């Protein structure tokens, strides 16, 4: 039995808090806001196209989409410096786009093409682009929180002020690596920023049914001497303000931060999951709490013209069209690629 005592699929629903309208007046430069608007659209439109390509039978294996969760990655993508490090989960398409990676190699990677971001060897769950500071997408829950600490440690020893961000889901807060990583970062005051995107469901099971505290990341922070920030993860401005503060703290030697961003996936956990375990009322409420239409309206309220926003949306759409066409026509990886890049010498030889 779930801890709540409710039968499977009949758990307590969690509705979103209304958007905080006062954030319209937050001290955020308008051009930064427009960039967050663009990134949210880049992510949404890419995810929609990937879904279409899946329905066409062109995307094999599994993948994990982030429709509905764009605001958090977009805000961090704008708040981070290009030389900062970010570490994603396997639900990492959006976080990859947010760091400035163009859509074509991402689509090509999911299509298993030679022009894929990692040559077709990683797939959806292992998108990586070191030149964009995007240090990998990690598919074993929790590991990359520990790895992000290493990047933050390295920055400290090398005398740079780069920070390392680890994004993770609510489910990761119950694995040992989360606790090891947060303790470690706090103890050595590393510039690691732990960002929990709490979308209420670990995979199929509500996080509330397997976790004795209300906020799975934030409520654990005091155990490590940290304050946590809880934000509306669907409001790019809210996330941006939290990100800016955490980044500043990390850059200036103030140590790690935990941010819990409340959000919701529009779809299921993965390809195989229609998400039917979620009550209709909850799904509808969160679909209404969509980050993108809200942000569109906020920018209009701030005096940005509809024509400018429409132009951005159209530019993004055209780029996705071009990228998808190019990815579709790209060749498969050559057979020789099977044998390359196990070792730094480019090969895979293990004996003489």
């Amino acid at each position: 039995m779930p801890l709540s005592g409710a039968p499977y699929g009949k758990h307590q629903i969690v509705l979103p808090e209304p958007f905080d309208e006062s954030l319209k007046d937050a001290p955020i430069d308008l051009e930064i806001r427009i960039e967050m608007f663009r990134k949210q659209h880049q992510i949404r439109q890419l995810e929609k196209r990937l879904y279409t390509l899946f329905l066409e039978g062109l995307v094999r294996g599994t993948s994990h989409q982030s429709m509905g969760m764009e605001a958090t990655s977009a805000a961090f993508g704008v708040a981070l410096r290009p030389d900062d490090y970010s570490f994603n989960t396997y639900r990492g398409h959006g976080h990859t786009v947010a760091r400035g990676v163009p859509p074509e190699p991402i689509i090509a990677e999911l299509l298993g093409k030679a022009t894929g971001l990692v040559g077709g060897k990683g797939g959806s769950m292992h998108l990586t682009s070191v030149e964009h500071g995007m240090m990998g997408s990690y598919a074993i829950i929790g590991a990359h929180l520990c790895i992000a600490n290493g990047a933050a440690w390295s920055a400290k020893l090398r005398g740079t002020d780069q920070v390392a961000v680890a994004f993770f889901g609510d489910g990761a807060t119950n694995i040992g690596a989360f606790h090891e990583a947060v303790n470690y970062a706090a103890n050595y005051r590393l510039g690691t920023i732990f960002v929990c995107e709490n979308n209420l469901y670990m995979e199929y099971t509500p996080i509330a049914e397997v976790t004795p505290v209300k906020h799975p990341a934030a409520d654990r922070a005091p155990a490590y001497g940290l304050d946590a920030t809880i934000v509306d993860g669907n409001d790019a401005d809210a996330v941006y303000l939290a990100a800016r503060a955490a980044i500043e703290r990390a850059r200036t030697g103030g140590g790690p931060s935990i941010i819990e961003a409340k959000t919701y996936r529009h779809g299921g956990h993965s390809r195989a999951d229609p998400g039917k375990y979620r009550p209709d009322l909850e799904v509808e409420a969160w679909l209404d709490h969509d980050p993108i239409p809200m942000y569109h309206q906020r920018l209009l309220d701030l005096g940005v013209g509809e024509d400018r926003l429409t132009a951005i949306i159209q530019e993004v759409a055209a780029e996705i069209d071009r990228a998808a066409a190019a990815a579709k026509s790209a060749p498969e990886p050559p057979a020789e690629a099977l044998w390359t890049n196990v070792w730094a010498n480019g090969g895979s030889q293990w004996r003489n």
Partner: protein
Amino acid sequence: MAELTYREAVAAGIAQEMRRDPSVVFLGEDVGGAGGVFKTTAGLLEEFGPDRVVDTPISEQAILGAAMGAAMTGLRPIAEIMFSDFFAVCWDFVANEIAKSRYMTDGMVGCPLVIRSGNGAGLRFGAQHSQSIENWAMAVPGVKVVAPSTPKDLIGLMAASVRDPDPVLLFEHKALYPSKGEVPEGEIVDELGKARVLRDGSDATVVALALMVPRALEAADRLAAEGIHLTVIDVRSLVPLDTATILRSVAGTSRLFTVEENPRLCGWGAEICSIVSEEAFWDLDGPIVRITTPHLPLASAPNLEDLALPDADRIAATIKAALG
């Protein structure tokens, strides 16, 4: 030339590399202030300071994660996992993360790091602190695996491992820490993937690793007195594996014995036997014989632990019987 213990060679090897390259850092449980639970790392904190020699919490995942993240971003970490048995609580980092990052990213992300660990039995520590797990490690594509048997090899293979651009697991044998050996003056840098022929004999080839090397040599001494002459090869490096040296030797002796401390099933010797039987079958004059720890957990009672591990008596008797 100076005589060092295998224990002292650990710190000497790490210090040699830390002096040479400021990007080499060292982390692990009790490695700094305490100088290591086996006193293998004494003096490093004093010489290199707490920025480069880090006493960590008991958090093996955090240790290997920090090492990996640092290696990805410009440092050359050496991480200690105190007992190799503890790899079981951080194996994700070895098998899924560190080993695979280069392949999964098609060469974009490398992890030039060393994980060193106290491996093997002989200290009566029981089933969870005595295992030889080098065969677990070699089963994972993407990590290199070495296990030196002498102080000189320990320093040289440590240096080679630190300088290697790929991740290396270096297994120190706990029972060898008090053993002594001559170590030349000056910098020592060895090579991964090279076995060493320690003794030449025409009747059979014996390949051994770590603690099994001195035991195989002792068995060879005893059999020599009976007119049986063995070639003894210290494998030293399981990945890359120097099959050429082994195949060349078997071509001359026509018999092969492996002496393995890890439990029987899928021990490293099984892979060598497979290679030799495929590629040197017509050189062989008799069956290949594996001398191993039985497929058992290890007991802590001294007599039971001794019964489990191959010793010179068992090695000599097995070889003598097989050679008829």
